[in-house]
């Protein structure tokens, strides 16, 4: 009886991925304890969230791929409708309208799109898998652009870029022509050049966004404002050195210099206390998660599974890259959490739901290879 139950529980779980997640969770709890100045209540909160997220992971991992495919269209359409609803009935805070009040709590529909969009695009390509041509890529692009435009309008540049990139990864894995990829690379290079030059930037972005980018290039321009995060983040990480100052011993962090040090800037705490060696370890753990995800993509039995698993893994990579790039002053400060480590429940639940999908895809792979 007990062994049956155990079988039932562990059946959908991918052991490798699951182990990596647990390692990151352990790291995260320890780090939060330090970042919050030994606030056990917050660590407890976080552990509760980890439990809930693992429950979500297990639940999603049990869903059959067939069911996931059936969910794709309704999830996407529902998400777009909610985004449109935000446009009309949304709650505005700090100049952005991103939330919907649904009585018990407020939800942010752009978060739903992080999963719903890759699901939809992967399903769409799967429908036409033996006859893919440029028209399908065009339609897929439109499917991506609709929610991205809606999120951009809120305005939420950070999230819209992340949602756009999750769609892009599917296009890439589905075989978007190399020529177009080359054109996009050039366009991105030109775009990067443009936004890093104030006169050009001001024509296309909000002034505060341009100021943020200008500050990133020269944080001392605005040391009390936007530059503050970057200066304090780099000081903390740089002062960590090779081995770090040790757990609970980061001075920058504990003297309240780092803003948002339990959320988006938690990596500054990590870098200060664990140094370069710790950073390399974290990069390796993240790489392990990403590579395991890409392996699942490679093994998947359907095009849907391959595309979706590829995109979910690449999404995880993007989050990690953007957060660490922003804390170390290489990318502008956009509100992206360090995946699975930053304090905050929503992003953890959505990331683990993604991993649940990965595990579902892994379980459905063909028994016979080749």
């Amino acid at each position, binding site marked *: 009886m007990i062994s049956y139950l155990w079988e039932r529980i562990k059946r959908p779980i991918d052991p490798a991925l699951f182990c990596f997640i647990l390692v990151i969770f352990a790291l995260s709890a320890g780090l939060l304890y330090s970042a919050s100045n030994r606030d056990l209540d917050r660590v407890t909160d976080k552990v509760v969230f980890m439990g809930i997220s693992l429950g979500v992971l297990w639940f999603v991992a049990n869903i059959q791929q067939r069911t996931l495919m059936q969910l794709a269209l309704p999830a996407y359409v529902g998400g777009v409708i909610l985004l449109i609803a935000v446009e009309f009935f949304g709650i505005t805070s*700090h100049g952005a309208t991103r939330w919907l009040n649904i009585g018990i709590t407020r939800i942010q529909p752009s978060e739903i799109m992080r999963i719903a969009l890759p699901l939809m695009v992967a399903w769409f390509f799967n429908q036409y*898998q033996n006859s893919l041509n440029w028209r399908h*890529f065009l339609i897929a692009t439109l499917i991506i652009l609709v929610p991205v435009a809606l999120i951009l309008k809120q305005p939420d540049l950070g999230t819209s870029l992340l949602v756009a990139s999750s769609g892009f990864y599917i296009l*890439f894995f589905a075989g978007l022509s190399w020529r177009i990829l080359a054109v996009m690379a050039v366009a991105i290079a030109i775009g990067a050049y443009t936004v890093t030059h104030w006169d050009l930037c001001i024509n296309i972005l909000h002034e505060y966004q341009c100021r943020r980018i200008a500050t990133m290039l020269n944080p001392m321009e605005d040391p009390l404002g936007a530059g503050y995060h970057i200066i304090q983040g780099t000081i903390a990480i*740089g002062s960590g*050195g090779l081995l770090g100052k040790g757990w609970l011993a980061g*001075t920058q962090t504990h003297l309240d*210099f780092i803003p948002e040090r339990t959320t988006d800037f938690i990596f500054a705490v990590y870098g200060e206390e664990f140094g*370069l060696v710790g950073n390399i370890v974290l990069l390796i753990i993240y*790489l392990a998660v990403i590579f395991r995800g890409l392996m699942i993509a490679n093994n998947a039995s359907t095009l849907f599974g391959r595309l979706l698993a590829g995109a979910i893994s690449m999404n995880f990579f993007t989050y990690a890259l953007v957060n660490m790039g922003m804390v170390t002053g290489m990318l502008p400060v956009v509100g992206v959490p360090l995946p699975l480590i930053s304090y905050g429940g929503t992003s953890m639940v959505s990331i683990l739901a993604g991993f649940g999908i990965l595990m579902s895809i892994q379980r459905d792979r063909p028994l016979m290879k080749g």
Partner: protein
Amino acid sequence: MNKKVVLNQKGERFAFQIRLIVAVLFILTMFGVLLGRFVWLQVAEHNRYLTLAEQNRISLVPIPPSRGIIRDRNGVVLAHNFSAYTLEITPSKVADLEDTIARLKGVVDITQKDRRRFKKLQDETKDFETLPIRTRLSDEEVARFASQSYLFPGVELKARLFRHYPMGEVGSHLTGYIGRINDRDIKDLEEKGIYANYRGTDYIGKLGIESSYEEQLHGKTGFEKVEIDSGGRAVRTLSRTPPKSGQDLTLSIDIRLQEMVEKQFGNRRGALVAIDPRTGGILALVSKPGFDPNLFVDGIDPVSWNELNTSIDKPLLNRAIRGEYPPGSTYKPFIALGALEYKLPIVNQTISDPGYFMYGGHRFNDSKKGGYGSMSFDRSIALSSDTYFYQLAVQMGIDKIAGFMSTMDFGNKTGVDLPGERPGILPSPEWKKQRFKNPAQKKWFSGETVSIGIGQGYNSFTPMQMAHATATLANRGVAFKPHAVATLTDPSTGKMTLVEPKPNKTMDWKPENIERIIRGMEGVMTIGTGANVFRGAEYVSAGKTGTAQVYSLKGAKYNANAIKERLRDHSWFIAFAPSDKPTIALAVIVENGGFGAQAAAPIARKVLDFYLLGKMPADPIDKTASGASAIAPAGDVVRD
């Protein structure tokens, strides 16, 4: 794009695997870049950051800049700063607030007003902010508190810069005032992305020039890098980036003129705007009654606030730019100019004026009983013939009237550099369609056009709009955006920036038409409704009286004394001089002042005398000119 159809699973698999390899390479490259950054920060630059972090635990302490000074055109200071000590309490650091304040009373003088103000600030802010309980302590009080400060944890003595308005009530609507930054200001600053520049600053411009030139007046916050110990206390200063003071403003206002006009108003309500038509520079901007901006500087106490806010006289309302009044007959010269521009037949006709005008079965009365018998275009302005303008309006039609008047910013904000300007109402069939919900009211009735001709009906404009239009006419159709600030000066470099008087619009009016209107307006001052008030003037001026109905008595004989004071007509006057090369144009309204010539024109006369001849009136309110008996030129009963 990829037109190739993938036929078999194997080929597709292979293509996918190539993509996977590319993705892996991309991931490794990007993580490589990150790793490079880590190595750079944590190995190459480690010592630098370690110095910054470990040995010198650096904190950035903001140093607020000193706020720019506001002066009038002659250098008279209207707003400046002085340093004084304040006693401040941080509520969250105090165990028993009531007890602390009660004990403080034994050391320094704390009035009931101080208590109320403190209570109000406490309601508006968070508990961990420090709030002033007493401002401007005397030296003796400072010494007394300093010796006993150990008894008062959570109470600090701070040297602060205070804003002071030496002119008090004079020009208060113009300069405005600063007040403590509240939550809404913080939200605005955050949205503009400039909140960081307000670290360490407690005050922000709330009204008038203090608000509209906030960015220039505020300056740039400096900061001090200080080393702090593990308890967070500052140990020593490492470097200092000085704050950049805000820019000083020089206004185009002549505060002596402003003060004189405010005295002329006495206790009456109203507004005056005087503009140099050659530049758009505002010479005086009066709104009566006013208030003392100094009340707001340390946070106003609730009793004074309620008094100002609930007063029937609305002292906080800037009537010059927010008061909307029907223009009455001061509207006539502008409509007349439109009639000339549109070449209406009536401008060359002499009409018969029986003292009323019949239209659609309605009788529209003239203010002159019995009428003038016959009336020509040129005399109609001087004598303010209503009958003539009723007919003119009907001939012109509402669309042409609205179209022509809108070019002079009637019904639009003039764009003056003061916050909160209102657009007024320029009625037209479109406006009515949007304004009313009820379908029956949406329609424009041709009868409504008739009263538009004499500036009544839905017409509603601010004194600023009237002054602006008058200045545009005086300047022969070259319009300047009205502005109160003439130059900005950087106090550290002495660099001056001119608020440039570029003409922002040139009307395509025919010069001979303009001159014909101006001749008519000169007639007002010599043979017309303003003749009595302007008798003996040493300059040639042009003007127009106006009376705006507040309450219309249907059919009854007008008797100002019988009507409650607040229901009496508003008295209007617009003027400019010298009429061939005007250097000043103005609009003045006296609420419930009666006929235009009665209350408003005498004020205009004093402004022109002062500005053109340097004459300062001896008696604040000239009894002879404002007396009702003096208004009627021989034999005529002229209302307007």
